[in-house]
C-alpha cells in the first residue's frame, strides 16, 4: 500500500480495490520473499533423513504439488469470469502465488534427490485429492463463481493452510521455511475467499443451501486427505492437522460433520 493511503479512511469499495491490487501484493511478498531462493534462505542446513522418513516426506510434498497444481489451474480459470476487474487482478496475484508454491515444492523434491519430480508427483498422488481437484475444475469449467470460490479459496486454501502450518511446526528447517512462506500466501487467499463469499451470502442468502451441499460433498474428500497426510507425517491424528480448516468452515457456517 502506498504511504499516503490510510486504510481506515477508505470506503469499503476502495479498501477492497487496494487490498486486491498488484501493488498490495508486491509490498506484501517483498516482506517475506526478499533474499530467499525457492522459498528459503539458501544457507539453511540440510537435515539427514532416515529411509522411511524421507519416503514419507517425498509423498507428502508430491501431494502438496497436486493441491497447488489444482489451485493454479482453478485460480487462472476463474479470472475469465471474475465479477469485477479488482477480483481478476487479485486472482492473477493468486495465480503467481500458486505457481510459486508448485515451483518451491518441486525444487524441494529435487533437493531431496527426486530426479524427475513431475513423474513422481503423478505416481504418488492421493486419490481423494485428485477427486477433489476434478470436482473443483468442474465448477471452474461451469463458470460457477460462488462454488469455485468456496471450493478453491475456502476449502482448498483452508485445507492447505492447516496442513502446511501443522507440518511446518515439526518439519526440517528447509521444508519449514518453505512452508512458512506458502502459509503467508494462503492466508491472503483465504481472506479473499471468506470476504467475497461472506458478502455474497449476506446479499443472496438463498445461495447458502446450494453451497452447503457442495461443502458437505467435498468435506469428505478434504478430511480423507488430511487423514492420509497426518498418517504419512506421523502426526497425532486427523484432528491436529485439520483444526484450522474446521474453524474456517465454522466461521462461514458451512457443515463439516
Amino acid at each position: 500500500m502506498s504511504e499516503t493511503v490510510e486504510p481506515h479512511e477508505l470506503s469499503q469499495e476502495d479498501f477492497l480495490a487496494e487490498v486486491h491490487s498488484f501493488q498490495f501484493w508486491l509490498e506484501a511478498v517483498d516482506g517475506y520473499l526478499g533474499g530467499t531462493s525457492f522459498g528459503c534462505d539458501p544457507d539453511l542446513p540440510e537435515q539427514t533423513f532416515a529411509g522411511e522418513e524421507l519416503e514419507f516426506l517425498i509423498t507428502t510434498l508430491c501431494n502438496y504439488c497436486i493441491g497447488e497444481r489444482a489451485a493454479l489451474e482453478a485460480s487462472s480459470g476463474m479470472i475469465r469470469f471474475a465479477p469485477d476487474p479488482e477480483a481478476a487482478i487479485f486472482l492473477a496475484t493468486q495465480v503467481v502465488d500458486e505457481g510459486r508454491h508448485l515451483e518451491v515444492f518441486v525444487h524441494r523434491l529435487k533437493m531431496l534427490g527426486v530426479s524427475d519430480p513431475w513423474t513422481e508427483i503423478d505416481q504418488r498422488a492421493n486419490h481423494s485429492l485428485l477427486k477433489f481437484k476434478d470436482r473443483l475444475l468442474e465448477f471452474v469449467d461451469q463458470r460457477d463463481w460462488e462454488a469455485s470460490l468456496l471450493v478453491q479459496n475456502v476449502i482448498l486454501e483452508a485445507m492447505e493452510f492447516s496442513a502446511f502450518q501443522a507440518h511446518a511446526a515439526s518439519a526440517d528447517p528447509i521444508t519449514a521455511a518453505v512452508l512458512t512462506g506458502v502459509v503467508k500466501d494462503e492466508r491472503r487467499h483465504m481472506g479473499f475467499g471468506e470476504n467475497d463469499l461472506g458478502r455474497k451470502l449476506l446479499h443472496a442468502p438463498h445461495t447458502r443451501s446450494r453451497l452447503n451441499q457442495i461443502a458437505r460433498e467435498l468435506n469428505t474428500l478434504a478430511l480423507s486427505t488430511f487423514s492420509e497426510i497426518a498418517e504419512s507425517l506421523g502426526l497425532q491424528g486427523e484432528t491436529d492437522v485439520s483444526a484450522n480448516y474446521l474453524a474456517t468452515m465454522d466461521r462461514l457456517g458451512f457443515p463439516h460433520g
Partner: protein
Amino acid sequence: MSDFLSAFSIQSWLESCPQGYLDSTEYGHRPGEKESEAMLDNEDFLEQEIRTTVQLVLGERAALAASSGLINLAPDDPSRMFLATQTLDEARHVEIFTQRLYDLGVKKSDLDGTLANYGNPNLVKFAEVLLEKIDKGDFVAGVVGQNIVLEGMAFSVFEMMHATNEIANPKFAHTLSGTIADERRHVGFGENRIGSLLQAQPEKKPEIQKMQQEMTAHMLAVFSDSFAESEEVIQEVQTSADPDAGPAMYQGVDLNTADSEEMEAVLSNTVIGEFKTRLARIGLEYLPPAA
C-alpha cells in the same frame, strides 16, 4: 526445453521483476511523480491521453484473459508456471493503466463508460480473434496470437510511446519502461516454446497464419483510426512543445516533428517487421492482411 524454461521460472521472475525493476515503484513509476501539467491543463491533450490509455487498458485486459486461459492448455508444468508470471504481469499492466486513467481525472464510477466510449471496436475484434482460439483449447495458436502478435504489437507501441514521453512526461515514460521489460520476456517465451511445438504439429500452420492475418488487419485498422483521430492534437502538441527539448527519436523518425501519417507508417512498418522476424524464428511466414 527444460533448460530454456528454467530461465522463465517464477524465481527468476521474482528476482528480475518484483525485486528488480519494480522495486520501489508505485503503479510502475517513481513515487510522487505526476502527469505533465501542460497536458492536464489542455482539454484536447487530456482527451487524447485518455483515449490512448483506454486502448492500453483494453489491450491488457485481453492479454490477461488470454494468458490466464493459456495456463490450463499448457502441455507442461514449467510452461504453466511461466504463464502464471505472465498472467500477473498482464494484471499489473491492467492496474497501472487503469490507475493512469484515474490520474487523468476519470472517476472510478465512470471507468466502464469511459472504456466503452473511447474503446476502438477494431481492438475489440483483434482480442476476439485471439480469445476464440483459447476458448477452443488451441495452445499453439493461442501462444502465437498472444506472445508473438499481441505482445509484439504492444512492445512496439510502448516503445514508440516511451520515446514520445521520455522528456514530455517522465511519469508515463517510467510506467512504460516496466511494461516494455515485461513484454520482452513474454515475446521471448513465445518464440522459444512454440518453435518446437509447431515443428511437431506442422498441420496447424495454415490456421495460425490465418489468425495472424486477421489480427494484423484489425491491428492496422486500430493504428489508422488512432492516428487519424489524433492528427490535429499531434500538430497542437508539436506547436506548443518546448523548442529546446530536443528530438524524440523512434526508428529513425523524430516524433516531435513527424506528422500523424509518418507516425502511423513508422509504427506499422516496425510492428510488421517484428512480426516477420519473430514468425520466421518459429517457422511461420508472415501473411499480410487480405485485400
